[in-house]
């Protein structure tokens, strides 16, 4: 698992199969607290502050959605 984002997600929920999910939230892989933990990890890893208005399930549904969220909040990917 070389994708750093997948590594962070695996730390949040090690038993979740993110690769075979089309929507992490709807598939029950990430709950509200996971999204909080993920946001905290992303902020520390990428030295950014994620805008509170971006804290919506749509921004955590897929890897691409999370990458867009990071880019929007100034992360260097």
């Amino acid at each position, binding site marked *: 698992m070389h994708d750093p984002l997948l590594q962070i997600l695996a730390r949040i929920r090690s038993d979740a199969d993110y690769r075979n999910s089309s929507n992490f939230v709807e598939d*029950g892989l990430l*709950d*509200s*607290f*996971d*999204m*909080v*933990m993920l*946001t*905290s990890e992303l*902020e520390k890893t990428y*030295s*950014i*502050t*994620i805008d*509170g208005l971006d*804290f*919506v*399930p749509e921004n955590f549904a897929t890897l691409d959605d999370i990458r867009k969220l990071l880019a929007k909040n*100034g992360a260097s990917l």
Partner: protein
Amino acid sequence: MPESTVTPGASQRLDTLSPSPQSPFSQAIVLGGGRIACDCLKSLADTGLPVHAIQNDPSPFSLLQHTANRPRCSWQMLNEQQSLTNHFLSIQQPTLVVSANNAWIIPPKVLDNPALRFINYHNSLLPRHRGRNAPTWAIFSGDPFTGATWHQIDTGIDTGPIIAQKTVPITPQTTALQLVAQCMQAASDLFRQLLPRILSWNLPNARPKDRLTEYHSSHASPAEGLLDPTWPFPKLSRFLRSLDYGPLDVLPKPRLLLSQPDPDACPVINRYFLHNSHTPPPRPQTPDCRSHVIHRPDTSITLWLQ
């Protein structure tokens, strides 16, 4: 997750609680929200008992409704105190009520309903750190460990007879957010272990001797939320980590105490980095942030202020 163990001596040990094959309950209610409520609902549903989830936190992120979408389970949102009171007063069939991440203080007249038996999850080793934001107070107090407590509910706040507890260690790096997650996991594991005893309602009934310990209100912050840069490093670290709930606004962000007489004029600490004195911290990406460095012999703390 750190290893957790049942606390010996702090409450009745699990292995001394004798199970009973008979359950007096014909249904269960999970009251609250968040992950711990979902986990309890799943464990209860696996027993075949009808389970009704009552969510009283209108968070759009909660998966409780999603989790309740299974056989013999139902869900409803009740977030007004009067509606909750009326609902629980109307119940006549024997019901186990599991309060998990529930901020509603259940009124005495509801507790007096003879059809209901209540248990609650609290994220500390009661009787220590009753009230709100217990992980904050456990970290700031320098406790080497805290944990999860399941207890019966009485008319006090977090004072009912303790059913069982599980410890979680606090390391010099643990933040409040991490501790919330670790205590929730410990509580879920403990609930699954305890379930046969809970369903038979064969539980210890002794209250802790010193049950009326200090109570933490929802608005209280350590040191009133002001970081004094003259503190020794361990206290600086504990203070910052105790208020670190990541993106959650559980408590107001801490402020740096400088020379201002008015605490509201002290700058807000947006982020902090505990680092080796020889290693520079990351650069702030927000242009309106400025940094303030507190030096100690081997360690530095860089604060991003706003």
